[in-house]
């Protein structure tokens, strides 16, 4: 399965994302920010990094890049899109995901292995159960998720992951950035567009640490595969 990885000026994790996709069995395709189309991929990852230097606001400039037009249309048609860290920020700025990501409450960049708890059943967590705990690195300066009504998001099944202790309890200390309701990842109402602050692409290789990221990245592949011939593929 061909999965696009969008490269913006200032992206840093695009090679990691491509590597991780390969590890879970996909064929990564780098997509240039200036491209007008998505080269026929079946899913798209917006990788981490500092697109346009993160200047002005994280994601604020990237969301105007030419490729984002094609991406929005793809998302509209139900195409699976995953934004990781800077990718999450871009998707929020583009209005493809609810809420916004702001400066960490502690005002420092935070890099650490981070336990997160699966909060909903979705195409992005196929094969995982609510309550499952994964340990995945976070690394960001602006990851504090803000939303007016996190309860409504949760009720709609849009909260994907929450920051937690290794045993799964959600505590203030486990929250690396002060996100509302400890939210680490969300989806759009339709469930095909997701954003995460943790970096599953950095957790696919036992030599480098955790392999929990495979379970998340693998989930999208199986969902897309399962959806072939269904609504997603029908529009491709």
């Amino acid at each position, binding site marked *: 399965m061909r999965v696009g990885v969008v490269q913006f000026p200032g992206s840093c994790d695009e090679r990691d994302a491509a590597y991780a996709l390969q590890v879970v069995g996909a064929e990564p395709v780098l997509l240039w920010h200036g491209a007008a189309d998505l080269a026929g991929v079946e899913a798209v990852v917006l990788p981490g990094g500092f697109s346009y230097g993160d200047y*002005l606001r994280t994601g604020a*400039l990237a969301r105007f890049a030419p490729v984002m037009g094609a991406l929005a249309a793809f998302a509209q048609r139900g195409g699976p899109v995953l934004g990781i860290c800077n990718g999450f920020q871009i998707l929020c700025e583009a209005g493809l995901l609810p809420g916004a990501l702001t400066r960490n*409450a502690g005002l420092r960049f935070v890099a650490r292995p981070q336990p997160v708890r699966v909060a909903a059943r979705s195409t992005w967590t196929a094969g995982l159960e609510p309550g499952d705990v994964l340990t995945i690195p976070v690394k960001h300066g602006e990851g504090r998720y*803000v939303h007016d009504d996190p309860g409504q998001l949760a009720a709609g099944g849009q909260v994907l992951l929450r920051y937690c202790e290794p045993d799964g309890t959600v505590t203030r200390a486990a929250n690396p950035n002060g996100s509302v309701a400890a939210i680490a990842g969300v989806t759009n109402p339709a469930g095909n567009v997701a954003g995460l602050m943790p970096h599953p692409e950095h957790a696919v290789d036992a030599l480098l640490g955790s392999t929990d990221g495979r379970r998340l990245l693998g989930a999208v592949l199986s969902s897309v595969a399962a959806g072939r011939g269904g609504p997603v593929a029908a529009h491709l």
Partner: protein
Amino acid sequence: MPRVSIDVMLRDEILDPQGQAVERALPSLGFTGVAGVRIGKHIELTLAGDGTDVRATVEAMAATLLANPVIERFDWRVED
């Protein structure tokens, strides 16, 4: 070529940890009685043209690019 200033601030209900940190640091530096510190962005730029549609241009740019309405509000003025 009008020169424009735009101030972009987090909306009041959004936590501003930077403002809070400054507010907390001030007393120990001998500045007392300072309250309600909020920190945002100050943007200065020059627009091409004679300035006939400054309002439209600036508001469009601020609303779509310079500020994120989900969390921010903005204010602008033409300088000099």
